């Protein structure tokens, strides 16, 4: 099994944010953010040094939690500092982006990294549908068409025009061509049946994030079955699981940290006003939305969202066995780990990366 570090590049004073989304830019001090990105890149360098195989980046907007709204820019900066590790863009939120621009970014990154790119396509979380004012009802259609267009743009040697449902481009001719031919590894991050099937039918990898093992297995079981239907067997790198982790020298120390975390009652991870949250969900599902009804019937309060759970927690042997469960039950071959928890500062993150590299990576290599 391979290890990947999800480079969140979080703003170092992230625990001071109010529980809203978007987070007002007034909370971003430029000197602090400059320092935070430097620290994040140091974490990537250390991850490479201690044996991680990939470092990954994701598109997230309007908050200091994962402040990489343009992940390709972040990835190219890290790629200059890390010379061996795979640079995994997991990934662009396709419904929000111009697919041709995404193809150009991927092609350029594959060149800048001399063929170390891994590409990932995502629909995005509901709040992010609002970033560029996209209609949530069109998200899935845009994702599927966007994937088709990007794959075509990256592989077609002659200019073409694209007459899509959501995209029309009369001239597409992406430069440079990819270093990895015909394509780099591509991972589709999804929980939805039609998108899992898309990945299987197009012989692409699958990414699953943060779900418990049995729910993840339900998804990977479908993926395996549909890959078989499509006439191929996914390789070990084709299933990527993104998880949140806290590893300490011993189980006792890890549990003590977790108890402290519970006492601090962390706020919701992606809090939205209830009216906005329900409006997005209604648009995504095609159901009617009654604004007055939501306002009148929201005794739980105005803000909704879930705390980000910790998937793996413990000493090195414990987290290795927790990771093994995903390998054995779900066929996960690449474990993409969010080490930079909200309540863990840079120094502690560095310590965790080192510990994981020294004590856990040798164990998961054997899976």
């Amino acid at each position, binding site marked *: 099994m391979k290890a990947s570090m999800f480079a969140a590049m979080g703003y170092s004073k992230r625990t001071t944010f109010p529980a809203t989304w978007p987070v007002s830019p007034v909370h971003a001090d430029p000197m602090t953010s400059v320092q935070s990105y430097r620290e994040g890149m140091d974490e990537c360098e250390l991850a490479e040094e201690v044996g991680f195989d990939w470092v990954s980046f994701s598109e997230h907007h309007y908050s200091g939690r994962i402040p990489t709204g343009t992940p390709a820019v972040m990835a190219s900066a890290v790629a200059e500092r890390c010379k061996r590790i795979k640079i995994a863009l997991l990934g662009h939120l396709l419904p929000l982006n111009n697919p041709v621009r995404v193809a150009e970014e991927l092609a350029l990154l594959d060149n800048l990294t001399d063929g170390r790119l891994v590409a990932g396509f995502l629909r995005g979380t509901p709040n992010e549908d609002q970033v560029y004012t996209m209609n949530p009802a069109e998200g899935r259609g845009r994702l599927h068409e966007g994937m088709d267009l990007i794959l075509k743009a990256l592989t077609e040697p*002659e200019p073409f025009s694209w*007459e899509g449902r959501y995209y029309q481009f*009369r001239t597409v001719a992406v430069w440079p061509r990819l270093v990895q031919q015909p394509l780099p590894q591509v991972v589709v991050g999804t929980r939805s049946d039609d998108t899992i099937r898309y990945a299987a039918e197009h012989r692409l990898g699958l990414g699953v994030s943060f779900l418990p093992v049995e729910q993840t297995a339900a998804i990977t079981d479908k993926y395996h079955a549909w890959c078989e239907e499509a006439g191929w067997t996914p390789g070990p790198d084709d299933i990527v699981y993104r998880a949140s982790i806290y590893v300490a020298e011993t189980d006792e120390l890890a549990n003590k940290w977790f108890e402290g975390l519970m006492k601090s009652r962390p706020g919701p991870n992606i809090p939205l006003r209830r009216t906005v949250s329900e409006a997005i969900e209604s648009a995504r599902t095609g159901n009617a939305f009654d604004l007055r009804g939501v306002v009148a019937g929201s005794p739980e309060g105005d803000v909704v969202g879930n705390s980000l759970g910790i998937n793996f927690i413990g000493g090195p042997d414990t987290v290795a066995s927790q990771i093994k469960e995903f390998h054995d039950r779900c066929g996960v071959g690449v474990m993409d780990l969010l080490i930079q928890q909200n309540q863990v500062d840079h120094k502690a993150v560095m310590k965790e990366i080192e510990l994981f590299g020294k004590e856990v990576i040798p164990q998961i290599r054997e899976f």
Partner: protein
Amino acid sequence: MKFQEKQVEAGGFNVRYWEAGQGRPVVMLDRAGWRETALHDALAEKYQVFALELSGTGDSPANTTSESMTDLAAMATIISAALTSERYTLIGSSFGANVALWQAVQSPEQVEALILISPTSIHPQDVLTATTASDAHLAMFAHVENSGKYPIISPETFAEETELLRRLKFGVHDSEAEARLGDIHCPTLAVFGQADRLVSSQAPRVYREKIPNCNIALVYDAGHCIIGDRPEALLNTVMDYAEHWETFIVGHQSGLINP
């Protein structure tokens, strides 16, 4: 726009055709059954459209004389010249596109612009493997629910057409046509359904590489019968190209919001 069915005799051929509209002439060569489409209507709103029935297709008498695509193209050239003395835009679909390609090679003085919709001259696949009219019909669509928009030809017509298509080597890579692509100097658009199962995805680039002034258009989520799967997208592309030729790549839609 109501098309009038007419008959024309020229060069020893007697051919049925449908005519509508006013303006610059457009000659269309279609598969049987694809004649009364939204594309025909849209074109007839702006142009004088002549939709020819290719001999041996549809309800026309069996064609026992044409030995090659070039024979059929020569016939189409003669008929087109009899219908209009002006240079015309030539639009062919599927089998009709293969004929149109040869017509453009043979009569560059007549063809002002060429639009090939789902041509199969280059790298066809599985074109003639269907054994029934129904199977052949279904293979044309990316979405089976769209197949009901156009009629399935009768078993007898299917048998006659299949015999003609085999004789004309439809469904076989036309290396002679590929060698002549460089002789097509008029503005040319080749349109393909992105999910066309009858043509290799490698085919479009060959037209682009070898025809000097050629644009390729890929219609997302459309099969071989693009007009069936994505009519609006096909109309948009073909109408723009017929009007603007290679300058159809220049954007004209306003992005202005709330001026």
